[in-house]
């Protein structure tokens, strides 16, 4: 595989860019693998990469029903942060953030991780209490997060409206400076390329239709549109469709699937230096390197597998954006889209073993799992390789919904993403 570098760019430019290798080959399924990962999103591809790299397990297939990275990995607004409230979450997301910081070099693929800071606005006394609680907890957990006055927030993001006369005035903001954004497609492609280089098969256009279990109850492999493929270990990482697949192995998951919409504006010159999120009004915005304002909203109100979101939510989101940033009303929405997000009762992921021997699950990331991609992939690989959870994902069990040991980030602050 050609190493990507400025030098290789120059060399290839001179030869008409004719000699670039395939970033990943179009693998045909073998009859058997050591590990099968269902779902070629960032999480699944990441897990395959770390299985090969850190655990020496290279006889691995990632099986994808469509094109790799085409699920929520390729549809999200790419906000990355780790200032979560609970110790368990802080540890997981901070682990991911540590990996983000070296990911481009690790993968030899520029994932454009940009630590431009994420600002979360407080609009009422309740928000202030809640964000302060986060700031305090994060500090003691060694996670950076600081409290800003409205004026400081405006200095950080000059187009912010901090007028006290606003319908929902800004009363302060929590800022995580290490937080930021990355290029979502590059994450999927970078992991795919690096995993493929280590021998992982990436099989696209191949829906997994069922998980097959043997007489002893353990996993035997997966049924796919291209036939049965054998494996003693199967990890399902299929976001909004995970519950459907797990059901075929007899495992019921506490997931609800909702459409979540996002949109971009036409591109403009830089006007927005950071990410701003406002929970009270349900909107958030950043600016991509291309110059598009990237805007996200809350989930649609009803569960659905349809990737068409409704119009009312977009109206509300843009009204909120125009409130927070009053200079953008004449900007235009270029396109909007939706993804199906898998939401657990406590809004935290399920990542670990299942009651079925050899079957592992990674799901429930809901509206905010992009930021976890390297971390989730990393600990999922560990869990599969060692058949026991990594200490970081040990609390994120399926059993917690029976024991009540929830990690309730939503309840704590109703904070998304």
């Amino acid at each position, binding site marked *: 595989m050609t190493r990507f570098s400025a030098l290789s760019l120059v060399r290839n430019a001179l030869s008409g860019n004719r000699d670039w290798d395939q970033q990943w080959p179009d693998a045909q399924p073998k009859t058997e693998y050591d590990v099968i990962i269902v779902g070629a999103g960032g999480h699944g591809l990441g897990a395959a990469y770390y299985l090969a790299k850190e655990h020496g397990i290279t006889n691995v297939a990632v099986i994808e029903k469509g*094109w790799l990275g085409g699920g929520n990995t390729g549809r999200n607004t790419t906000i990355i942060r780790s200032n979560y409230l609970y110790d368990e979450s802080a540890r997981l997301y901070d682990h991911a953030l540590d990996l983000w910081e070296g990911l*481009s070099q690790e993968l030899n693929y520029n994932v454009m991780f940009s630590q431009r800071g994420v600002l979360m606005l407080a609009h009422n006394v309740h928000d202030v209490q809640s964000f302060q609680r986060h700031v305090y907890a994060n500090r003691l957990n060694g996670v950076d997060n600081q409290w800003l006055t409205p004026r400081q927030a405006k200095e950080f993001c000059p187009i912010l409206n901090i007028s006290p006369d606003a319908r929902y005035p800004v009363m302060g903001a929590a800022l995580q400076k290490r937080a930021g954004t990355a290029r979502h497609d590059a994450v999927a*492609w970078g992991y795919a390329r690096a995993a493929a280089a280590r021998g992982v098969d990436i099989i696209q256009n191949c829906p997994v239709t069922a998980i097959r279990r043997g007489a002893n109850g353990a996993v035997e492999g997966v049924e796919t549109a291209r036939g049965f493929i054998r494996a003693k270990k199967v990890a399902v990482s299929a976001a909004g469709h995970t519950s459907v697949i797990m059901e075929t192995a007899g495992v019921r998951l506490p997931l609800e699937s909702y459409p979540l919409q996002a949109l971009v504006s036409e591109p403009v*010159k*830089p006007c927005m230096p950071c990410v701003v999120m406002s929970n009270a009004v349900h909107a958030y915005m950043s600016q991509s390197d291309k110059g598009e304002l990237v805007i996200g909203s809350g989930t649609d109100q009803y569960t659905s597998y349809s990737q068409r979101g*409704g119009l009312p939510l977009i109206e509300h989101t843009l009204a909120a954006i125009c409130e927070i940033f009053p200079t*953008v009303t004449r*900007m235009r929405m270029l396109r909007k889209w939706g993804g199906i997000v898998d939401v657990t009762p406590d809004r935290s992921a399920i990542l670990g073993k299942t009651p079925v021997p050899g079957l592992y699950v990674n799901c429930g990331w809901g509206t905010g799992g992009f930021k976890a991609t390297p971390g989730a992939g990393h600990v999922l690989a560990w869990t599969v390789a060692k058949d026991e959870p990594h200490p970081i994902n040990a609390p994120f069990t399926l059993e917690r919904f029976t024991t009540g040991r929830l990690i309730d980030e939503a309840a704590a602050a109703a904070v998304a993403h």
Partner: protein
Amino acid sequence: MSRFRVTGKGRVDHHAPVRFTFDGKSFFGLRGDTLASALLANGVHLVGRSFKYHRPRGIVTAGSEEPNALVGTSRGRGRFEPNTRATLQELRSGLVAESQNRLPSLKFDVGAINDALSPLFSAGFYYKTFMWPKGFWDKVYEPVIRAAAGLGRAPETTDPDRYASRHAHTDVLVIGAGPAGIAAALAAAKAGAKVVLAEETAEIGGALLSDPEVVIDGAKAWNWIAARAADLAESGVRVMTRTTAIGYYHQNMIGLAERLTDHLDSVPENAPRERLWRIRARHVVLAQGAIEKPLVFHGNDRPGVMLAGAAQTYLHRFGVRVGDSAAVVTSHDSAWHAAFDLQDAGTGIAVIVDTRTDVREDLVAEAERRGIRLRLGHTATGTDGRLRVSALRINPLRDGSVGNGTKVFCDCVLMCGGWTPSLHLFSHTKGTLKWDAENTAFLPDRKSEAVEIAGAGRGLWGYGAALDDGAKAGALAAEALGLSAAAPTHDVRQDRPGTGTAHEELPTDHDRGHTRAFVDFQNDVTAKDIRLAVREGMRSIEHVKRYTTTGMATDQGKLSNINGLLIASNALGKEPPKVGLTTFRPPYTPTTFGTFAGYHRGAHFEVTRKTPIDSWAAENGAVWEPVGQWRRARYFPQGSEDMDDAVARECRAVREGVGLFDASTLGKIEVTGPDAAEFMNRMYTNPWTKLAPGKLRYGVLLGEDGFIRDDGVIGRISDHRFHVTTTTGGAARVLNMMEDYLQTEWPDLDVWLTSTTEQWAVAALNGPKARTVLDGLVEGLDISNEAFPMMSVADCTVAGIPARLFRLSFTGELGYEINVPARHGRALWEALMEAGKAHGITPYGTETMHVLRAEKGFIIVGQDTDGTVTPDDAGLDWAIGKAKPDFVGKRSLARPDLVAQGRRQLVGLLTQDGKVRLDEGAQIVDDPNQPTPMKMIGHVTSSYHSATLGRSIAMAVIENGRARMGETVHVPTGKGVEAAVIASAVFYDPEGGRAKL
């Protein structure tokens, strides 16, 4: 008058010049021009620079699919906007336009250095570099890339314009007012349907506006249009021009954006700039026509190279010749007609190049008659010129090989690579498409909504076909509604049907690794970029799109998608449908944020809910606090008091005399019916069966997970009627939850739920003198402690107003909550203030209420609880009806973790230094000297200065807190560490005697 303006042609007013400026230079156009046609009339083709390579670019199209001619426009302060399509912007007097993405000027742009380095900037190059040194990406490389990217500049001032929105219903909505759309609207309307006809541009007619010689039923095109406009009006069709259908949603709900003022010379007072329509139609007819495809060849992006159909439109609709000498390159018949029309208007046709050898005889004969040089079976392989095309290079095609090239001099190139049916809206419905190999186009296949597609939108070519098909679609739509309809046929003369072939990159004698044949003009994606993406393993068209960014520019792939697909499928050696088409996403044309926000701006962003007593509070200097959508009086400062002073004074008044509080925002739900008590038993943790009418009880509501969701005092008004109160923020949630259970779990229960939050105004009278104040005002009820003890409810009149009187206390003092019909709220309030005057009655706000309840250890759900707190954690175990068979959350309360040791329990916390007030949200540790990450054992939920106690008080949740009374814990504040002692959360009057006076 410019020599490019053709007198007597076009729908412009040749006697009405309109002045405008472009990049500071003054020009004249005509009334009826678009900015693009006015610029072309002045000989200006160069209007912008491309995104990546900063290549000079000219106008390519005449419609909303324009990729290049994007300009900044302004009309005074706050009315600047970037990326306006010059092809859609109607000329208005004084229009100020500027080119974009160039430095320092359009003609000389330093960014063009990128063009020289373009081999380096191949598709996806940025994924392959800028990785070293680590950490340089967002500090060094990214800022440079960001500054170079983006098209126009963002607006910097607040927009003074208003935006509007409206809903409408119709039987049939026809989208697109070309011949097919007009025929459809008329057929449906004549059958008796209510019809709306929406058109993106300023007038109806569509392609016919650019083909005036066509004769329909004996009338020339424009006369036919005028006559049909009258017909439409007469048949009651609502014609909406300047209205773009932007999105097609579930169940035939269409979003449309109507532009109301951008075309006017001056902005009318108080008129909205744009209006969002949400039209629900019983049937929809999509008649959006087709969009012309560019040809992909080296140098096809030079200013002066444009679509042949666009040139025809500029000629006929605007009376503008796009040049003096045109070279035509085509693979479709339609461009031949454009060439003939331009020649008639005085533009020389340097050559017609057709890639086909086999062209319709009548066209060839006509061209020969006109003396036009023809090159059939030829390809175009390059253009000359820097800021404007000066020559086209053409080569013969022989048995698959490309012969030697010759140059044809020209000042414009008109290209046509065929036409793409416009199916964006159809795609929004998730209707499926099928590949038509003969027309190399996707056509509509399976429908998922009640919709017809008519005319060129489903691949029919020629006016006759479009008209008849439109009429048929209109009739079908009407028939689907149960009307009987007829579909008239049309007699069309001078029709211009046509066929053609499609190409990927045109054959060339250049090395294809070095050609610059553009597919996506705005995003600078070339054919070789697409081939590179395929070579690098991108096999799905979605990957190709994302890797190269083709189709992701502001024209949303309207020009580039099919060409990109053909090139990719060729490189992959697969049929186009196997490679797939990328999903079209709303909106059809980029639409302003303001249009979506509509009326919801400023104070109207969300309704501000105000209580009936709000006006009094406003007049009396209240400082407000937003709580959900409500605004509530937080405190009432006097003189120079700050919040602490005011709250201390208000607290003292309640503890020593009497205070009055507006509690109207509390959620209120009336639960009635024979099974009301049973319903309450199942919803709330408490037992309700034995609560006697006339009595109150504090109720706790859990979620299914066993955690506290809401609380409130609930009165039993009669056997079958409960007056439930909820938290202010929880009202809607609780009602929803109740309805959900009632409708889905217990439909057998005979219960009705009614939200009464806004029916009642509530004044809370608290303090040792509360009864004294109230006594003189109450009629019909003995309110002595014996007759009306704590936790009673009764109807009576207060100050002559019918009232529902609660006796309860959220402050720890003797207290009453007086509920009266909302319209009497202020009168009640004033009567109480008047009656209390002699006793020093003091109005108090939410902040004081918070302090008073914290002194008593009463929780606020959402502040002292956070959705992870059980009743036992909060010290509310007593509120659980243990004997009840079930209630929401009961089963979860038995889960192992909910009964485990070490849960965080609500306690009081007293700082060692009583002057120190902890921050709410501060975390608590046992050992402040441990290394990070620290083991946190809880956090501060409420914290105030208590004037009554003369020190700070706090509430906190702490692991095993109730077993640790008197122990010292630590609160790292960021500046230091505060030591605090765990205490009972009831700081004041622990016996509770004061409320029972």
